[in-house]
């Protein structure tokens, strides 16, 4: 997964399940899957709704609003691409729509307080990949 684009950090593997998600981030949209039958909203791009079992689904554009659920600060370098960022913080964000996800704050150095309200921002890291990050709302 080490790219030749100058972006030294790992990149997502884009496949037929998540292509629409990654097309969305390039357009500065945080897209989630919603179930046609029960309206359950999921971040994971499963073909089946974990709430009701329906395979009928559509993409929605999330508000980008959420809350910091927790964080950890990495002091061990697991990825060479993050070596210059050490120590860096990864957060768990609980989106207002329900799903949680792992992400970074725009400022990766300082852990945010749990409960901080945040807003999604979009950071292009290659021509194909734009990552969703968060900043205090």
């Amino acid at each position, binding site marked *: *997964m080490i790219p030749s684009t100058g972006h030294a950090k*790992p990149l997502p593997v884009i496949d037929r399940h998540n292509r629409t998600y990654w097309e969305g981030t390039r357009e500065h949209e945080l897209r989630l899957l919603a179930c046609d039958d029960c309206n359950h909203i999921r971040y994971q791009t499963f073909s089946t709704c974990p709430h009701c079992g329906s395979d009928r689904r559509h993409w929605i554009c999330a508000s980008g609003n959420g809350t910091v*659920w*927790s964080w950890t600060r990495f002091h061990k370098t*697991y*990825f060479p691409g*993050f070596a210059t960022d050490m120590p860096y913080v990864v957060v768990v964000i609980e989106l207002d729509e329900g799903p949680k996800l*792992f992400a970074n704050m725009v400022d990766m150095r300082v852990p945010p307080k749990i409960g901080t309200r945040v807003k999604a921002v979009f950071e292009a890291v290659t021509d194909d990949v734009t990552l969703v990050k968060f900043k205090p709302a």
Partner: protein
Amino acid sequence: MSITSLAGRPAIVGVGTTPYGRLPEYDQYDLGAWALKEALSDSGLALGDLDGLIVSRIGDYQRFGEMLGINPRFTAQLPGQGRMAGIAIQQAAMAIATGMASVVAIVYGNNGRSSHDRYGGEGDQYGSGGAGQWFPYGMTSPGALHAMLFERHSALYGTTSAQLAEIAVTFRQHASLNPQAVMRDPISIETHQNSRFICEPLHLFDYCLINDGGVALIITSQDRAKDCRKKPVYIRGVEQATALADSSMPPDDFWRKPMQSISKRIYKQADCSRDELNALMIYDNFTPTVLFSLEGYGFCPIGESGPWVKEGHLRLGGRFPANTSGGHLSESYMQGWALNVEAVRQIRGECGDRQVENAELIQYMAAAPICTSIIYGVLPR
């Protein structure tokens, strides 16, 4: 509906362990076979007596069976995840209870230290579907997930790192009495607090010890156990509950729901109460898991596990001596397997300086997307 007792009264009649540490001359198969021979010798049974085989972390059950020259009538292979230790024992107990097998060997071989397993970075397979989708954010490793869970627990309940230190110090003290433990030098709260962060807020001493080693157990029925060398240790109860839904993300309840579900059933099955237990074996991949387990399995009120462990209940001589071998934190990370062996050795009274007096009932417990618990007894009921 819950099971009130297991038919056939499954019992552990043999346990075997290799030394733990750096064993570069041995692969997973060698380590598993070594532990199995120790377990058979412990039981007084021979390879030819086995008609059931479950392997975990050993890459290929077929190769392992070929290596041993055995043809069991019940065979299964489980992945090399710690949550599988309890499942292996559950499946073996089910095989005995149904008569699908009469003598089951469950075998674990782990060469993680010599093969440089890091549990983080590009090869990280932890979590639902593997961790790869989060690598772009630098997220990796079970340690990071447990650090996030602990930070959340701290925010909700005021739990502190010094309370985690109590767990690390206690288990190291136990390890100092266990000749088989990899880390035997006692540590202090200050040693823990001054050690480097790995995934903050977790320090080095909040992490388990990756090593090479093998573990095997032989399980048979009460009837068959009479012919074995040592007195049997009965599986009085074994239960599983899961939280696979939403398991890509750390759980809001610290896996409390599946642990509470197990607790509702297991004491009925084991025909005993929590108060009668003499010791605990708590899956300690990281110190916070011990706190989550104590709350989930009902040993202290929700949110109060930090102050509760600080009162010293887990120490030898305390109300519920735990991980008397040193556990994953100080004996070796044998992914639940060696904790189950320790339960058996305690009930047999084989634990020397770390022996719990009158150890008759011991509970093993694990907290993860698959939770399992086992109650061992010196008597079948």
